[in-house]
């Protein structure tokens, strides 16, 4: 039976601000729990053991959740590396990035660098093989790709992964949170940063300048190549459109 360790972080509801499971971590836990054949799933969180968000993961079917007790403002990476070394899992699951805090998605890479594992990001599905695994990853524009990875591997789960199962309140109460003492390394980077509320910028590229400039930019039409067919027969029009789309490489190539 292969061993899977899952790195869980606390999340926050984007509207109400209440503590909850991080969405990506819940997807990662779902992927770990639904591995076929089933794996031995262990879970770890570095932070406050009393965080109510952690109960949600137990509600998904975990019986134990190890929490490395770290106060706020401490670096979780050294503790996590130590834990991963001790447990020596075949697969480590994590979300692409955390929902609160810096959220740069670097923690799995730091663990991989320390333990000699390989990392795959944007994972949406996993297939276990005898001595490794097939990983399916999401790319932009709806494309998917498949790679083969050897053990040990660290998989970061993308938001496009299959949805997480429902949480059971009874299981969330029954599940056990095991607190462990760990070395405490203070965080050095974040105290030197300035934080302020994010101001969204428009997706439209509106230039600065006078009102006239902005109006012109908003209403101006970029002229195309301007090949115009006036009142063609419908069949001729269809032929022209298909020819154009094929020439631009948009239409799927005819099957062989």
């Amino acid at each position: 039976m292969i061993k899977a360790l899952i790195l869980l972080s606390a999340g926050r509801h984007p509207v109400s601000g209440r503590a909850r499971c991080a969405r990506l971590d819940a997807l990662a836990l779902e992927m770990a729990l639904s591995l076929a054949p089933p794996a031995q799933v262990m879970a770890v969180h570095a932070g406050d053991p009393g965080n109510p968000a952690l109960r949600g993961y137990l509600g998904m079917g975990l019986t134990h959740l190890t929490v490395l007790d770290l106060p706020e403002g401490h670096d979780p990476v050294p503790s996590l590396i130590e834990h991963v070394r001790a447990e020596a899992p075949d697969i480590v699951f994590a979300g692409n990035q955390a929902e609160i805090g810096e959220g740069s998605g670097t923690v799995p890479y730091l663990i991989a660098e320390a333990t000699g594992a390989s990392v795959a990001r944007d994972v949406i599905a996993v297939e276990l093989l005898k001595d490794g695994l097939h990983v399916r990853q999401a790319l932009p524009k709806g494309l998917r790709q498949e790679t083969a990875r050897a053990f040990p591997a660290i998989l970061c789960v993308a938001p496009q992964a299959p949805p997480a199962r429902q949480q059971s309140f009874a299981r969330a109460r029954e599940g056990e949170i095991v607190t462990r003492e760990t070395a405490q390394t203070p965080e050095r980077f974040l105290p030197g940063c300035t934080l302020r509320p994010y101001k969204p910028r428009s997706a439209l590229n509106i230039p600065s300048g006078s009102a006239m400039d902005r109006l012109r930019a908003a209403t101006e039409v970029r002229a195309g190549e301007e090949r115009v067919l006036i009142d063609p027969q419908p069949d001729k029009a269809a032929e022209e459109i298909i020819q154009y789309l094929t020439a631009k490489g948009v239409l799927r190539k005819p099957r062989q």
Partner: protein
Amino acid sequence: MSVRRDPRGERDARKIESRSGLPRFTIAPVEAGTSRRRIDPRAARDARRVSSHGRPRFGLVTALNPGKIADPVSSEARARPIRIVETPDFLVLAVPDRSFGASDADTQAVINAAHRLCAGSNGAVCVLSEPGDPDYGAVGADRVLQLPLERTTAASISRLIDQFPIRHVVFAESPEGADLARQTAARTGTRLFAAAERISEGQASRRCDGGKMELTAELPLVVSILPHIFRGEAKEAGEARPITVDPALQGAETPLARPRLLEADPSALSLSEAEFILSAGDGVTDWEGFSTLGDLLGAALGGSRNVCDAGHLPRDRQIGASGTIVTAKCYLALGISGAPQHLQGISDVQHVVAVNTDLHSAMIKRADLSIIADAQEVIPALIDRLKREEGRDD
């Protein structure tokens, strides 16, 4: 411009000393050197006269208002200036985006961001090139590092950091760039500044805390940027001087196997992700035919605001300023006349095909291929032709 007579100045020039205190003037001619220069409007107007015969015509250019002088050489024909950095104090390494489907604009964005990091100091932007890459001079590279490897790896980048005075390494936050940036940061033991949105004077900011907060910090060694924010043409071309890398110092580790690409289902895609969009406006009434055509073309379906308001398509399929702003490669517009808000939504589309009955509509001006016909007649013809082609292939 001639000088108009200034009577007060002339009188002041003729003034001579008087013992009685009353003003006295000489009648001898004096030079009016001290007089104020005044503009002669008649002379100025004569200078603007364009043709002397017939009705008088005047141009807008005067000595006082020279206007813009037309450049005899068109701006395109004029070569862009080439920036030359002879002895840079440091290098900023720009790693081109090699993700599947990445465009030249993404690589350009990385180089633009690298230039922001050099701004105000004597630094040079160095592009990490692989065999078979295009010329990076035109997009603003000062130096080009050619690795003797088939694929860039984090290990090879960290070795370059040891060899050259590299102050920052810039990646695109795309699937491959994000992966390589994190590996490089972990390998070099430095903090990654991921998904930077703004860069100025050595400081950068990014979203954090689930997108609610903005974090600003001094830039570390490894930076990844959001490519769509830094898009835009290079202001100056670079000389793209090659830098030689000692092959002995570049180990020959084998990178991970290249991934295998799988086909995507366009109907399950959100519009902002779609590569090819079939879009309908008020000129479409046969919605079954429209959806069949979408299936046959392998296109995602979209529509104008009117169509979504009428309930023919769900709201998430609306394209335009108040709907989705799409970045598709190709956009086939059926029966859409092109309201400005709709055209804003497709401003980033590469190829536009329009079918509309109105020759003078804005969509026809925007389109690369325009068909002036009723969309309702073209839809069955297209379906017919695509079905025939499919049948022939089977």
